[in-house]
């Protein structure tokens, strides 16, 4: 059986690096992020066994994530809530600094750049947020919201050029440019999300991180916003890092998919491959749980237990407590990502050919 794996490996390598055309835009290398839960230094002091000790507790939100976003693709990151998707997004955008690992943009390491040196990258990478009701400043008109980034990044523009550009992006996202004097609360959720997209597009970025951009919207509006994002990708040659928990959206939108569980990537594959042939037991369970229209009854793979907290990470494979295929090795040894047909998977069972 191991032979098969190796055989597949060569296949995968061939398909993963087909030509010089695919170009890595963003590289996330061994990313780690811990959040300190224990408060200030004084609050950390505890009496234990008669001794005063310093006690610290961490949320291990990301534990060694390595991902490459290729130019022009939409890399989707999926996983259940709390698995660290947003943390990856926010670290890539420099909103929080990583506890370990590196982030490279277009060959340049950016995770420790001072604000000034980061500025040119700020124009090139933008973000769209989940909550349309919180992502626009309620005290600013739409016009002001859209003009500010332009004025900031291109101080050379004269007012009429700024006006033209704002007009153009508003038009591009399907918001009537005459409504510029209105405030965010006068728009519906879907319209606000369009405006958020317009704000991101205003500075002509090449890379957009979208953190659950449609999760808060109604089905009919989700389709509109998804189409808009696809239009923008086509018209402007955008690259997306698209974060979601909705697998049916991924199937439609993603070029490649990374499945995350407890802060680690457990499977990474092209969308087609992942949906046709999920390898990791967690991916399989996740896919089986999507309620499909054609189903008469729920037919999902039952997992034992629930997602453990990222405060005390399980040893070995993070999934072993819920995995139907877990054995002794899974409980002690952490699986590494190994290449498979069309992707990579981190699972001992797959590697050993048990699955």
């Amino acid at each position, binding site marked *: 059986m191991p032979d098969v794996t190796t055989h597949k490996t060569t296949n995968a390598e061939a398909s993963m690096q087909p030509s010089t055309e695919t170009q890595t835009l963003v590289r996330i290398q061994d990313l780690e992020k811990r959040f300190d839960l224990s408060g200030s230094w004084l609050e950390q002091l505890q009496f234990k066994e008669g001794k005063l000790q310093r006690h610290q507790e961490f949320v291990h939100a990301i534990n060694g994530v390595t991902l490459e976003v290729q130019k022009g693709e939409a890399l989707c990151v999926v996983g259940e809530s709390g698995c660290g998707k947003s943390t990856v997004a926010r670290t890539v955008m420099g909103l929080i600094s990583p506890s370990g690992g590196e982030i490279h943009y277009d060959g340049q390491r950016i995770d420790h750049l001072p604000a000034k040196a980061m500025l040119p990258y700020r124009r090139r990478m933008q973000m769209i947020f989940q909550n349309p009701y919180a992502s626009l400043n309620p005290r600013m008109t739409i016009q002001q919201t859209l003009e500010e980034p332009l004025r900031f990044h291109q101080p050379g523009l004269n007012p009429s050029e700024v006006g033209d550009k704002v007009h153009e992006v508003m038009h591009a996202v399907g918001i009537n440019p005459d409504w510029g004097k209105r405030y965010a609360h006068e728009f519906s959720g879907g319209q606000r999300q369009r405006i958020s997209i317009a704000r991101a597009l205003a500075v002509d970025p090449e890379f957009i991180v979208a953190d659950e951009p449609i999760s808060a919207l109604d089905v*009919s509006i989700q*389709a*509109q916003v998804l*189409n808009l994002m696809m239009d923008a990708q086509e018209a402007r040659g955008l690259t997306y890092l698209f974060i979601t928990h909705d697998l*049916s959206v991924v199937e439609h939108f993603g070029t490649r998919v990374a499945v995350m569980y407890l802060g680690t990537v457990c499977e990474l594959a092209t969308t087609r491959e992942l949906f046709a042939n999920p390898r990791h037991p967690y991916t399989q369970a996740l896919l089986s*749980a999507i*309620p499909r*229209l054609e189903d*008469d009854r729920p037919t999902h793979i039952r997992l034992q*237990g629930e997602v453990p907290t990222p405060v005390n990470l399980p040893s070995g494979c993070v999934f072993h407590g819920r995995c139907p295929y877990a054995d002794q090795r899974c409980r002690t040894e952490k699986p590494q990502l190994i290449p498979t047909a069309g992707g990579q998977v981190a699972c001992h069972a797959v590697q050993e050919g048990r699955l």
Partner: protein
Amino acid sequence: MALLEVNHLDVRFALRGGDIQALRDVSFSLDRGERLGIVGESGAGKSVAAFSILNLIAQPGYIAGGDIHFDGQTLSAMSEHQLRQIRGHRISMIFQDPMMTLNPVLSIGEQMVECLRAHRRISHREAREIALDRLKQVQIPSPQKRLDQYPHELSGGMRQRIIIAIALLLDPDIIIADEPTTALDVTIQAEIMALLLELCEQHNVALMLITHDLGVVSQVTQRTLVMYAGRIIEQGPTKEIINDAQHPYTQGLINALPQMADPGQRLNQIRGAMPSLNAIPSGCAFNPRCDFATEHCRHVMPEFVTSGGCQVACHMVREMIEEAQHHA
């Protein structure tokens, strides 16, 4: 006669700009043991419809018209005291947020026992037995231990299981579940839905399932109501609605799902958004978004017509049926 019958329900909210009508002429029925899905976008009036059955609408809302019959009794004419005998006993509710039902300062066991003893003359011991039995039914790991735990000690999925156990406590005739899994992850959602379905079948309980997820509706329910801007616009057997929806809105809703388009292609979107209730267009409320709207649609509110097993409120569908009859 149906177990639950809602006729011409009219619910309004008295707001400072005047009344808004959250439900307009809503009529439907639910048979014993039947599973009914209510779908629609947020703000369509799904929750208001569910809440008004047990007269649970909060101020400034009020029931302005219509009547509700349950098992030979008229709920809409009952006093608050009489309704309390029905709530949680013969009709129980499951909300999206489990903490709406759970009391954070009482242990799970205490809450279940209290609920049982409020409606039945049984001893504390007996009540605890029943509670434990229900916890076993909802397949909670180590049920004995859960009785003494507090809601905050449990995960979201576990809490929703407890809620289901509480809903089943008094052997109700109907469970009304308002988006019970919207806040949960897909894997947990799948488990909870499967559980709910299994238990309803096992105990022959009727289920009214409110959700915006058409996939869930197709898996769990037998009949479906589609709501839009406070009205029912289509109802019928779930299979028929999913596979052969008649109303342009229902069609649009289904076709807008990512799985209905080829990967990488544009989704079939419905333009615009649902109007807010204080600005509902005249005629058919869907007309500004509808590809088939005519002048007639803009002025006259469509009545229900029967098409196959479905009831559809759409002029276009009515005309098509009339034409077909004409040819026949």
